């Protein structure tokens, strides 16, 4: 295989160009999330629906190789939900397929005059007619694209203008958060599909094999990834943990414990539906996506929790159906459920199960009463005259771990430059899963540094294409060995962390350019004023606002930001981003 290439797609002009990726850029950006952000350079000051904005898709630097859990795809775009540049990582086969075509990334710009799709088969890439496919349920779209190794699509919700419209990869992965589906539809871009059969170059194959063995040993030693955890139930296994730690968002975050949780957990779902089976990503020993008999996915923790506890509904079957509906419609399940919970709290009318499914359909089709739900919780709460009822950060609804239950998480949710993501800084690993060591989850001591370091590591790993779940077992030390084997150049954990620091700072820099500052780096007032639901020896007080602000100030100093959360020019120069 020759030097890695970038594919530039101009939908307005209907052109496809290939250009080589500069070796220094590749060494600095790695791939995946890092390279995807880099490809958007020069286009990040535009409105999200400006035709000149870009959608960037990049396989991780270690995708396509014989390594466990490194085939992920990174995407970056301007989010209609937050107004900021956003990113997402996807499992499935598409990252591997793209890497094996010899491509390091794809940048899609312009706006087509009718729905188009991009098909890549090894060295061939072409825009194809997609008018008949745009707006189809995602399972029908994947069936139509079934001859290709992997695909990313926008579902029906995207084509009706829903801000909750995510993209779905390989039928079961996503829909992602932040409105990627809507951003695709705004360009009349329906899908990206690829098949690749080339070998990804490796400088030292025996060393790569040793690195893979190290990772597998650590995965085997990880209780979280074992058969009683993600290896058995996917990340739905986290539901019991959030419940046990009294940090399960319940009835729209008014409570943090859901007494009916044991009846809604993953083992109970398997008793109801039958044993699930793995849908593993290429080379993954864990297989966290699990299919229930009947062809529906075992929902992940966020969807399972938000379609049960957050809505006050002890109906795990509904969670399965609602999650399946979101997948088919291309609707972000976290935002969808949280928007329904926001409506319920604002109106006092808590939904019945049948109503939930009808509302999801309305959000995606834009038809019928309730279509305003498709704009998300923040817009809905503003319309209702109760903006405080939207439990969002940077306009994006919160995921299914209550920040009152883990203060590093609370800080990470607040200061993320792209909106709240539970795992972006990895705090739940040490605050809840006790890896690599347990930290005091009800203390801000050391958490500013933990968020800083965790964000850096996460950015590096996502740029390598490493699954975040496998990162619970193997750290930068092991993944650095793998990268060294691929490139033939020694890269240690410290170097990867420094690369990650630069990537995270650039994300802050880019979004500061779109107006991000300290005012947005906070949590909804409820978390500072109302306690969670204590019990079983666990007290869940409201977060001390002053302690939070002090921790945020420390984070800003570590990150090289001023007191208003804006990048310091000296740090910008130091990182080569001026």
């Amino acid at each position, binding site marked *: 295989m020759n030097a890695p290439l970038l594919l530039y797609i101009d939908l307005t002009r209907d052109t496809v160009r290939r250009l080589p990726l500069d070796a220094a850029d590749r060494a600095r950006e790695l791939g995946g999330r890092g390279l995807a952000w880099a490809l958007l350079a020069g286009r990040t000051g535009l409105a999200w629906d400006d035709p000149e904005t870009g959608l960037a898709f990049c396989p991780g630097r270690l995708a396509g190789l014989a390594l466990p859990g490194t085939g992920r795809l990174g995407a970056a775009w301007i989010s209609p939900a937050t107004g900021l540049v956003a990113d997402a990582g996807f499992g499935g086969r598409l990252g591997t397929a793209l890497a094996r075509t010899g491509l390091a990334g794809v940048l899609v710009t312009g706006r087509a005059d009718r729905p188009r799709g991009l098909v890549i088969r090894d060295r061939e890439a072409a825009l194809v007619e997609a008018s008949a496919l745009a707006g189809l349920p995602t399972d029908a779209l994947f069936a139509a694209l079934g001859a290709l190794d992997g695909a990313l699509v926008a579902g029906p919700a995207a084509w009706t203008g829903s801000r909750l419209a995510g993209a779905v990869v390989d039928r079961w992965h996503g829909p992602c958060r932040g409105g990627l589906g809507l951003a695709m539809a705004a360009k009349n871009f329906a899908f990206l599909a690829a098949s690749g059969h080339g070998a990804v170059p490796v400088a030292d194959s025996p060393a790569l094999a040793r690195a893979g063995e190290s990772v597998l040993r650590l995965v*085997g*030693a990880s209780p*979280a990834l074992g058969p*009683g955890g993600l290896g058995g139930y996917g990340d739905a296994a986290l539901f019991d943990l959030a419940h046990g730690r009294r940090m399960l968002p319940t009835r729209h975050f008014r409570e943090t414990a859901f007494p009916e949780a044991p009846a809604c*957990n993953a*083992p109970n779902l398997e008793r109801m539906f039958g044993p699930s089976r793995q849908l593993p990503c290429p080379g993954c020993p864990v297989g966290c996506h699990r299919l229930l008999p009947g062809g529906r996915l075992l929902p992940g923790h966020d969807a399972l929790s938000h379609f049960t506890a957050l809505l006050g509904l002890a109906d795990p079957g509904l969670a399965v159906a609602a999650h399946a509906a979101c997948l088919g419609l291309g609707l972000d399940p976290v935002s969808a459920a949280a928007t329904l919970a926001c409506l319920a709290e604002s109106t006092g009318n808590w939904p019945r199960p049948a109503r939930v499914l009808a509302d999801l359909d309305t959000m995606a089709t834009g038809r019928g009463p309730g279509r305003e739900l498709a704009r998300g919780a923040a817009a809905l709460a503003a319309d209702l005259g109760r903006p405080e009822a939207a439990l969002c950060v940077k306009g994006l609804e919160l995921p299914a771990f209550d920040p009152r239950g883990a203060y590093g998480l609370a800080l990470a949710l607040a200061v993320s430059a792209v909106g709240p993501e539970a795992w972006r800084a990895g705090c739940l690993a040490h605050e809840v899963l006790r890896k690599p*060591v347990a*930290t005091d989850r009800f203390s801000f001591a050391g958490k500013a540094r933990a968020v800083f370091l965790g964000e850096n590591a996460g950015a590096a790993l996502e740029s390598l294409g490493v699954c975040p779940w496998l990162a619970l077992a193997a750290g930068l*030390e092991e993944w650095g060995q793998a990268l060294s084997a691929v490139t033939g150049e020694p890269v*240690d954990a410290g170097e990867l962390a420094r690369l990650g620091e630069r990537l995270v700072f650039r994300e802050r820099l880019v979004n500061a350019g779109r107006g991000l500052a300290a005012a947005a780096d906070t949590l909804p007032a409820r978390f500072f004023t109302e306690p969670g639901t204590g019990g079983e020896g666990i007290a869940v007080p409201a977060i001390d606002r002053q302690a939070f602000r002090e921790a945020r100030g420390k984070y800003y100093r570590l990150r090289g930001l001023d007191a208003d959360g804006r990048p310091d020019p000296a740090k910008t120069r130091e990182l080569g981003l001026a």
Partner: protein
Amino acid sequence: MSATETPLVDRLAKAGLCLPGRGLVAERDDVLVFSRDDPLHGLLAEVVDRLGVGSLILAPPAEPYAGILEYLAAREAPAIRPRDCETRTFFHDIPVVTDPTAEAVVAALSRRKGAYLPGLGILAHGALSPEQAFVTVSSVALAAFVKFFSDALAAKRAGELPAPLAEALSRAVAALPPPPPAIPPVLAKGPFATKSSALAAMAEAGRVTVELGLVDSVFGNISYTLDGVVLISQTGAALDALTGQVDACPLDGSSCAGLTASSELAAHAALARLDGRPAILHGHPKFAVIASMDCAATDCPERGACHVACPAKRFLGQAPIVPGEVGAGPRGLVHTMPPALVGRAGVVVLGHGVFTAGRTDFGEALAALCAIEGLARRQCLAALGFPEAAGRG
């Protein structure tokens, strides 16, 4: 700079791993603080800054670890490569930094969690907390001890020990801590009918196991199965501080509570199903680990992969020695240890540690652990020409 608290270095000293009062902790949240004054503040401050970590521990080892590490470092720099299970899984190797400049130290600690600085001590970093560095210091000391005695046994099998090794060995043997007692302390009598009594028994057994030197504080695990629920120490829990560090994991799989349980939950659960004895204790007694790695079959085709593929039926006394990696992976000890322990007092997992079980409480399990380690110590020291030291304190 003000002094930070020193419970971690006190714990290292109490475990005999670090010279009392000599451990040094550097910890930084917003500003850097040291646990005590030391001429090395400047070096450590620069290392913390350049690594971007939250903490460092420099632990000048106590004997016999000091002599062992100095001996290994002098011969194996730039890295000591132990072959025990913990090192294989979590640490890979131990860099030796002979020229303790900030540049060299940063290079080593960018690559690994800990390093040995001859004349200065074990240096380990913790990105999140000093607890991480504490774990690494313990691991480095244990791994070096096991490697040193394993190498000595291998050299002895090949002929006479080289003089420097013989000399270092004599010093190490002279500094060994006492062997485990032939009659261990009396523990709470079972069976335990309530969760609280079972938890109290686990806490007591864990504490005594650490006090007897049968496991370093942060390693090992312990469980008691009561009414179909495995009460098991959490991953990373200190066996001598188990309060609030136990997960309740139903054997019927009705919850995913095992997510934060010990890596060996699957093995404990498998044994509970196979055997029915409720009390299970897992320690890392050093001589049992060394003895399990000591093998005369130098021409074995599985040499180098003994820890996962040893084909021989080997025993340490009555205890089988079985291969198996940490956890529930395809080569995990979950497949080897539980069937081997059924009907026996204990099992040694090659290069890793010992599992024992008790029919009603932890007294029987602790006695078996002491007996296995005592036997291993006698065998190893006798083979090395120190039969009189085997039982000496």
